[in-house]
């Protein structure tokens, strides 16, 4: 018997599961068939669900067609309430990018400080413990009130939610650097700055990147909710807008796209993490 590699067998199972899911979805949304008798005038007012027994949930074919439609024209702009998915995604990714990078520039230096100084670690601990569990969206009214700009407010919310995992992981990575590596630096009379960059940073980098990966995941989760709240642009607003339009097909399409983008963001960070990981 021919042996297939583990990856090959896993792919076969994945495809089988996918096909089964699509089939089940298709069957479940095929239509119930119970059609009410009604006058033609009334039927015109009703949707196809009531008149032809079509399921209210879109089937996989509907979603596929909608997805194809979006892929063909991702960047159209027909005014405030009708923009291509590409444009909406670009808004969301830009907000996540800015808020996230801002968080990186704060979290890593502060994390370093906490990790290197037991005093600062203890002094800042109560603040972090209280601020960390706050839902990022709870900051939204405060942000809207002070910043007075909905776009900037959602960037602030991304900033605040990306901050904690990165800061805590950086602090942990820095404080957990092996004593012997620090002793090597000490016996070589390496100064504080050089030590931070040549020993502590490379040693803590895998842990820091793990924090950054967690953060980008959270940021992508939060941006959808934040944009639903502030509205205007972005993939979160798109989802809510399509819900208001009762276009479940578009909602399902958007869910799919959100998942794909999230995966890509995660994979980018995973690639970076691989670069700085060292085998022991």
């Amino acid at each position: 018997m021919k042996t297939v590699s583990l990856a090959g067998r896993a792919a076969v199972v994945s495809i089988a599961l996918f096909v089964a899911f699509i089939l089940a979805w298709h069957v479940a949304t095929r239509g119930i068939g119970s059609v009410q008798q009604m006058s033609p005038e009334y039927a015109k007012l009703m949707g196809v669900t009531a008149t032809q027994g079509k399921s209210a949930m879109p089937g996989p074919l509907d979603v596929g067609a909608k997805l194809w439609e979006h892929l063909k024209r991702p960047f159209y702009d027909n005014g405030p309430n009708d923009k291509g998915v590409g444009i909406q995604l670009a808004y969301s990714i830009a907000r996540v990018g800015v808020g996230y990078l801002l968080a990186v520039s704060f979290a890593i230096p502060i994390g370093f400080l906490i990790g290197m100084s037991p005093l600062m670690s203890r002094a800042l601990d109560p603040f972090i413990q209280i601020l960390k569990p706050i839902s990022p969206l709870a900051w939204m009214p405060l942000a809207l009130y002070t910043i007075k700009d909905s776009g900037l407010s959602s960037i602030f919310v991304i900033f605040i939610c990306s901050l904690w995992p990165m800061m805590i992981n950086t602090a942990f990575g820095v404080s957990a650097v092996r004593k012997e590596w620090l002793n090597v630096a000490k016996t070589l009379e390496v100064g504080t700055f050089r030590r931070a960059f040549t020993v502590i940073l490379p040693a803590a980098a895998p842990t820091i990147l793990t924090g950054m990966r967690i953060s980008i995941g959270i940021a992508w989760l939060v941006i959808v909710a934040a944009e639903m709240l502030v509205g205007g642009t972005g993939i979160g607003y798109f989802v809510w807008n399509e819900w208001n339009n009762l276009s479940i097909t578009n909602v399902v399409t958007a869910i799919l796209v959100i998942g794909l983008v999230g995966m890509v963001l995660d994979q980018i960070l995973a690639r970076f993490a691989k670069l700085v990981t060292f085998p022991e």
Partner: protein
Amino acid sequence: MPDEKFISIEGISKRYAGPGGSGDVAVFENLWLGMRRGDFTCVIGHSGCGKTTVLNILAGLDTPSEGTVIVDSQAIEGPSLDRAVIFQSHALLPWRTVMGNVAYAVSSKWRRWSKAQIRTQAQKYIDLVGLTGAEHKRPSELSGGMKQRVGIARALSIAPKIMLMDEPFSALDALTRGTLQDEVRRICQETGQTAFMITHDVDEAIYLADRIILMTNGPGAVLAEIVENPLPKNRVRVDIHRHPLYYAVRNHIIDFLVSRSRTFTETTPGFDPRHVPVVRPAFIEPTIAAASGAPARVA
């Protein structure tokens, strides 16, 4: 020797606060020891006698509760490039290559050197420890023995006044350990390197050291004796155990470790820690078989 006190340990003690504020517990007390330039000194003692603490104090990684250490007429004030440490766990930076690890030390010592100068110096010591061709490997790709070779190259590359070794070969298998002992001996003889090593291995101490320091058991450990190695300087591994004095030294040390290290402080009332007795084993002590009147053992 002109440099009788090239390195001088002067009355160092190390104490820790006892449990529940019941007074301090001394790991070791009032140690005095002079080391000559170019000497290879080994310290032997049971676990817990504070050998590693002594080495860490010499390295500047730890501070004594009392006393000072003077290296080349300067008191130690923290770690220094004058004193290189070879760690038991090799302590290589895993994200750097062999060349990177050695060059890191070189560039720490000579900060203004050009890249080419640093590379040349690092390469010299990589060649010296026999790692030519492995410069671009990372520590994870090396065997335990090769990692420790990198550790030795890194320590030597900064031309330290003294090389401090904390059981450098105890994590290696017997064959690798033998080869590395040969290497360390060759290098120290070639370069006239002053070395201070902690070991548990009596044979290793006899093979490598000019003087073997015997430490009593802790707490309150003291330096009991300095054993001058009577074996010739040009000793080689293959026939060292055939030298008439080999077992005299070996038995002397083993006797100390087995019984006297425990009772030394009580049985030696007039012991003066400032003048540690120097012993030079010079005759073959009676073997166990002869002493008990049993027939000679088949070797």
